[in-house]
């Protein structure tokens, strides 16, 4: 990594106050994100791995200011995002897009696919009329759907195709960075590989950087240049993928790696007889 990173997160925190809300009981704030430092370079994939409740989704939202961070700094191409008004933030959102876990919940069921994929182009004033139509058709083609799908509704597609629609929408504004929050964990095994390969092809072609968030360290290892391991709101370990997976330093990373099932009967038996996890 040389020069200025594309995204630099420093000391980012998001605390939720349990005293707020109808059933608030007061007490210590929940430190969902508790002082996180991350850097993502242009065109690279940083994998963020952690279990449910580790704070990885809240971290993504805080980076995009979909929730307001409690403290810390988020710099995108050197510009501090936490100090911008929502209005000043909007043009920057063009460069940072998000892909969600559940494509069914993140696509408006009453909108046609063409409108869904075209919405960011319209919002940012990037295309209209015939040009919009052409661009949307192109985007659908890029993710392996056909332009004839334009007029259909999300429910007419399978889970894997819906995730392709979500990816097309994220690509519409030609972003420099995509935050992908568990983009394949709701998909069937045979579809998962297709989507992972699609994301890699797009990166090779367009030079997009990914913050790839998942609970499955196997998938994260496959796609990432570097890995950050998140546990209880903090990054407990961060480094080159092979280094983190082969010489994990943090006990939690070690535990996470040891818990991954070994899809090999002989190795699984050997592991059990030596008293590893699963015995």
């Amino acid at each position: 990594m040389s020069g200025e990173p594309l995204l630099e997160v420093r000391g980012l925190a998001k605390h939720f106050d349990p005293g707020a809300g109808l059933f608030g009981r007061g007490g210590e704030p929940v430190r969902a994100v508790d002082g996180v430092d991350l850097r993502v370079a242009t065109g690279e994939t940083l994998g963020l791995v952690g279990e449910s409740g580790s704070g990885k989704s809240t971290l993504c939202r805080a980076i995009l200011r979909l929730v307001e961070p409690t403290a810390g700094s988020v710099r995108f191409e050197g510009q501090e995002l936490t100090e911008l008004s929502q209005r000043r933030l909007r043009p920057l959102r063009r460069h940072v897009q998000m892909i969600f876990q559940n494509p069914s919940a993140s696509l408006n069921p009453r909108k046609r696919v063409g409108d869904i994929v075209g919405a960011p182009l319209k919002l940012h004033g990037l295309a209209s009329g015939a040009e919009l139509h052409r661009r949307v058709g192109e985007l659908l083609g890029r993710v392996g759907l056909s332009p004839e799908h334009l007029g259909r509704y999300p429910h007419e597609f399978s889970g894997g195709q819906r995730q392709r629609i979500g990816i097309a929408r994220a690509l519409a504004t030609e972003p420099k960075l995509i935050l992908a929050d568990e983009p394949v964990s709701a998909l069937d095994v045979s579809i998962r590989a297709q989507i992972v390969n699609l994301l890699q092809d797009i990166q090779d072609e367009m030079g997009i950087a990914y913050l790839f968030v998942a609970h499955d360290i196997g998938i994260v290892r496959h796609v990432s240049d570097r890995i950050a391991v998140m546990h209880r709101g903090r990054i407990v370990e961060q480094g080159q993928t092979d280094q983190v997976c082969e010489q994990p330093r943090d006990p939690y990373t070690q535990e996470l790696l040891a818990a991954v099932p070994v899809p090999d009967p002989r190795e699984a038996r050997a592991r059990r007889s030596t008293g590893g996890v699963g015995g």
Partner: protein
Amino acid sequence: MSGAPLLEVRELAVSFNTEEGSVRAVDRLDLDVAPGEVLAVVGESGSGKSVTALTLMGLSRGPNTRISGSVRFDGIDLIAARDEELRRIRGERIAMVFQDPMTSLDPVYRVGDQIVEQIRAHRETSREEARSRAIELLDAVGIPDAASRADAYPHQFSGGMRQRVMIAMALSLDPSLLIADEPTTALDVTVQAQIVALLRELNRARGLSVVLITHDIGLVAEVADRVAVMYAGRVVEQGTLDEVFYDPQHPYTWGLLGSLTRIDRPRPERLPQIPGAPPSLLSPPQGCHFRPRCAHEFERCAQVPDLEARLAEAPGHLDRCWLDPVEKRERRPIEVDGS
């Protein structure tokens, strides 16, 4: 496998009438589970694995369901059995755990009381006896401080602990068969490993037979004795764990094993992928259901291959593929360690 199977499924077919037509969710399914054995049924969504599980428990019956074939459990035909008889068998002889323990536990009752109620619905025992049995079970499935945790409500447990409670409840009447439908899918990886280890331990220590329904073929190596791979309503391959992992015969099984990300191996440039998507069961392809996605398709595939043994040396290893076994071993794209 020696002696009679505990569970014997033959030519099981389940169809649902829907507004758009008839959906054959399960098609000519044969399965055996021996006493004390763990059978893993692996398949993606729409493969028919969960409908199979529900049918084994008599829970897929309904006015729009057509079920044919036979399911014999310890000599009793569960397809022909009356609802009353099924109710007795369920829980007492065959128990089930589901993916999401929160939806299966009653949120307003203490977990101990839920187990006590289940025991007393089937057995004539005093509250005190049933309660001490409940605590014993919670302890056996690894709930620390079981005696006081019995008084807690479901929301006071973590996901993994709730699944342990569900398993304790499933064991409360000492069943001989446990059907576990995606029991670890909603759980974190570290917790998943613990639940799998618990299922294994119960199987080994109590001789409990288990049918483990899962989409995750990676998990199977940790726990199963035998494996059945389902695709679009049919079993496409069935054999011992080692047969299926080290000498897979069906191209779909190759695809499943090939698309796993293995942290114990160097990373491939690209993940091997299966093209396309599973067929709609409203209008499945004629012949082999995997045909449209298969790189090895030829004329014969327009007819449905039977599920049969095609390897002289492995009479229990069955598959539904017309390819010649010698050809299969040549064409198989994945690295298998057949030593």
